[in-house]
């Protein structure tokens, strides 16, 4: 098999097609979903490719996003995936990329977004009075909010420097849970503007040269901040609401 599929590439391809308004009826969903089922491991995690690779939350997210975009959950065992995700919640409330690893902004995003896409976390769960939740919600909330550092930016892990992209990874988690209004928006905005390059785009830290990755997440972060002139964001998919809804 010389050109085997890659889960991350498949997710990117479908997300791009969705963003440009491609008609999904033309996509061979069946093959994608069948291939995907074979990538899920016994513990619920996913490998990105068939001939062996890392398996962690990033690929669980890719799988969930693909199923969501194709509107077909036959590509994965949701219960097993959920079990794996729950095993990734660290003692401090955030999620690591694998069970036992340090809680991390990207891992936490993949965990919460996957659970949301799969339908395991209801809308605005923080405003509901239900004390039962499959994850430790109060601890997660506390961890997320503590990621906003004195400079106003968000860090990916405790005691690490702020980085533009975590304004999206962590900001999105808060948005998905219904807690985005608990952050200090002005402070975040101030930090992000210091990461905006004189050439346009965003870098990782204040004064850095811009790159595509941090520019994308800089913009999505401003979308979450409801910056005038930017379209509203679908946090679970990392694209505009318009794209996600196929408008």
């Amino acid at each position, binding site marked *: 098999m*010389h050109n085997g599929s890659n889960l991350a590439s498949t997710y990117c391809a479908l997300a791009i097609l969705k963003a440009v308004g491609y008609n999904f009826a033309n996509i061979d969903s069946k093959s994608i979903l069948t291939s995907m089922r074979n990538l899920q491991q016994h513990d619920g995690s996913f490998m990105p*490719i068939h*001939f*062996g*690779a*890392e398996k*962690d939350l990033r690929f669980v997210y890719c799988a969930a996003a693909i199923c969501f975009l194709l509107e077909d959950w036959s590509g994965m065992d949701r219960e097993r995936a959920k079990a794996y995700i729950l095993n990734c919640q*660290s*003692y*401090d*409330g955030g999620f*690591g*990329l*694998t069970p*036992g*690893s*340090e*809680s*991390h902004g990207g891992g936490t995003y993949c965990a919460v977004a996957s659970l949301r896409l799969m339908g395991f976390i209801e809308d605005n769960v923080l405003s509901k009075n239900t004390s039962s939740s499959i994850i430790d919600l109060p*601890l997660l*909330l*506390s*961890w997320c*909010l*503590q990621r*906003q550092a*004195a400079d*106003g930016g968000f860090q990916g*892990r*405790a*005691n*690490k420097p702020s980085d533009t992209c975590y304004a999206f990874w962590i900001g999105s988690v808060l948005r998905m849970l219904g807690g985005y*209004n*608990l*952050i*200090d928006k002005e*402070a975040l905005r101030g930090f992000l503007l210091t990461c905006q390059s004189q050439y346009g785009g965003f870098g990782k830290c204040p004064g850095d040269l811009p790159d595509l990755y941090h520019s994308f997440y800089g913009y999505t972060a401003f979308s979450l901040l409801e910056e005038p002139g930017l379209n509203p964001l679908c946090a679970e998919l990392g694209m505009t609401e318009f794209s996600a809804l196929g408008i």
Partner: protein
Amino acid sequence: MESDEGDEQQQEAERLPLSQRPEWSDVTPIPQDDGPNPVVPIAYKPEFSETMSYFRAVYYSDERSSRSFQLTKEAICLNPGNYTVWHFRRQIIETLHTDLQDELAFVGRIAKSNSKNYQHHRRWVAEKLGTGAVNKELQFTKKMLSLDAKNYHAWSYRQWVLQALGGWEDELDYCQILLGEDIFNNSAWNQRYFVVTRSPLLGGLIAMRDSEVNFTIEAILGNPENESPWRYLRGLYKDDTESWINDPRISSVCLKVLSTKSNYVFALSTLLDLICHGFRPSEEFREAINALNTPDSGPLDSDLGRAICRVLECVDPLRCNYWLWRKSKLPLTVSSQ
């Protein structure tokens, strides 16, 4: 067959194009097929394009030879992120039975300059070598962590080694050393939790809890503004809130920090959490909070939980909205301490 150790840089400087190497004269390179209308074509350097074109030729014909093996090394050095090349290299290793220790050394050199892409390959080699590879792999990750004590991939690989191959004996000591170097290293705290909860040599969380609580409290008192030990302390009582609120050391460390009147934000939030879970604070807690004299309006709330929230709104203004929200969620109690 395999070139000398560490000559990758030399190779780069003296590179002879593949088209000029006699041992490759029988091979027709296969250019990359970007389709008829590439949208964002990458401006590859000529040596990169050429290497990959020859790679495609041997990959598609599944030629598992020593020249292919050498070629995968060149391709990896140009782009260690290409997992297809790594995969084919593994297939060649299986066919030719090349030296696995040399392979670990090779991956080690790649890892130094590219701290991400080596993991799966290294894992595959280590698994083939089995438990004999433990010391080398722990040494390898230790080296990576000496360059960056928070390298996520190194930690994740180290955790895999411990769980798959063993070697737990010195891990708690290693965490201790790292925390001695930097008590703020959250990765080291996380690893400590990993060892304490999963090491087959230590007896599990509950058996270790007492000594761990003592260690953590020392760390807190040394730097109360450090988030990591506070989270760790809570983690020691995961799924056992009852024991957590009943351990006098927990509330005691909050009180101690409050009494210093500096760096007390985590002490306050921990106390708030204790109260929310049923802890009944004695009068000295109220006195300690009164003594803070925060620039807050008016007399403190009769409800200690509400009082704490109001102080936090003041002293942790970044999370002001959160503390207001926490205050709104407090159970309405008539009784006050």
